[in-house]
């Protein structure tokens, strides 16, 4: 390999060699610029300008005005709070459930493959369809969930009408849809655990709890952390399920940040303010993701 590179260097010279290398990267760079960098910088430009409807693009430069407006908007803070509540409850719930279920369905028997395959189905259902199914199931009058709960004496719940319950509904739907994804990762992780460590622990007289807590968990920590980061990146984008099931209601109880931005931009046509919000959310997400990645690396090292 090095010989080939050295040969190339002799043939084209140092500059030519660089040229050859960059020319291989060019298609990727162009593609990334077109689909990734351009939209982001365009949004950035709009966020610092007043939006000109007549040319449908960035108008006059207004500096930080849009950001000021947005930061003074209580609805923006409200939707950030709603998103935070959702994340704080849903993420740990999904990761814990995912690994727990993966442990259960990893039990060895004939139907294991079938169960594992069936478990993927919720994940491949389109989000809008998932919202639709759950709207039907959780319907306060005709839904089967209230019927079942009524059988055990739990009063009819207004799943979409009560602000707190609506949040719970969103979390239930999201958990139903995304736990299989974590189960998928966790199943692979559990199967890849080295057997000899467990045998050694058993010989040393470790009981079931000690085996889980002191052997399995430390081995799983890197994967749990990675899963958490992946799921976090998906969860901050929560939009479609809310759109299909509660549409931010009742009031603004489930209006997560993305839905709020979407409404501000494409319903109220406040493009400049929305762009500012997008940039704030983007920076927040990037900072938090960086922190999580750092934290997960620290966790890996400490175990």
């Amino acid at each position, binding site marked *: 390999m090095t010989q080939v590179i050295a040969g190339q260097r002799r043939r084209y010279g140092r500059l030519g060699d660089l040229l050859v290398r960059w020319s291989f990267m060019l298609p990727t760079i162009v593609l990334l610029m077109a689909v990734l960098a351009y939209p982001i910088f365009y949004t950035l430009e709009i966020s610092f300008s007043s939006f000109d409807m007549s040319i449908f693009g960035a108008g006059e430069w207004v500096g930080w005005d849009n950001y000021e407006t947005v930061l003074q908007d209580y609805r923006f803070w409200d939707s950030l709070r709603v998103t935070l509540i959702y994340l704080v409850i849903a993420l740990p719930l999904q990761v814990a459930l995912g690994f727990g279920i993966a442990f259960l*369905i990893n039990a060895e028997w004939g139907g294991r493959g079938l169960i594992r395959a*069936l478990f993927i189905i919720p994940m491949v259902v389109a989000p809008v369809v*998932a919202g639709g*199914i759950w709207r039907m199931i959780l319907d306060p009058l005709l839904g089967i969930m209230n019927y079942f709960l009524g059988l055990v004496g739990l009063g009819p719940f207004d799943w979409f009408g009560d602000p707190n319950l609506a949040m719970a509904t969103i979390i239930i739907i999201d958990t139903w849809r995304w736990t299989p994804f974590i189960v998928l990762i966790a199943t692979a992780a559990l199967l890849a655990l080295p057997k000899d460590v467990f045998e050694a622990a058993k010989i040393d007289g470790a009981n079931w709890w000690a085996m889980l807590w002191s052997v399995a968990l430390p081995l799983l920590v890197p994967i749990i952390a990675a899963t958490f980061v992946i799921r976090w990146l998906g969860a901050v984008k929560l939009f479609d399920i809310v759109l299909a099931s509660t549409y931010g209601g009742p009031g603004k109880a489930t209006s997560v940040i993305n839905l709020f931005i979407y409404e501000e931009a494409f319903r109220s046509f406040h493009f400049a303010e929305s762009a500012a919000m997008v940039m704030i959310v983007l920076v927040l997400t990037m900072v938090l993701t960086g922190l999580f990645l750092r934290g997960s690396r620290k966790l890996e090292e400490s175990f």
Partner: protein
Amino acid sequence: MTAARTAAQRRPVALRKIRGNHVRIVAGVSISLLFLFPIFWMVLTSFKQQVDIFTTPPTLFFTPALATYVEYLQRADIVRRLLNTVIVAVGAGVRCRATRSPGSSCGVLTLLVY
């Protein structure tokens, strides 16, 4: 404490393991059924007639009807819509093939993109 422990030790290890496995299987299958119920309910509803959908309590047994399917097949422009989906999925797959690293599976990625 010690009595319980000796009792547990006296019990054959293999038997304990099998029983634990059975508990896991039962729990795993029930949770899977719980997760699959919404799908099942959707499929069931698709065979219902309008009257059966809007009844309280919800019915599990009813005379199945294919009317919805027939109507949908007649009304919807399925071929065109399916083609759109295929174009998007194949596009994602091709991009994956072009840029994939060794050992990665494009099938799974296409599924995830979808």
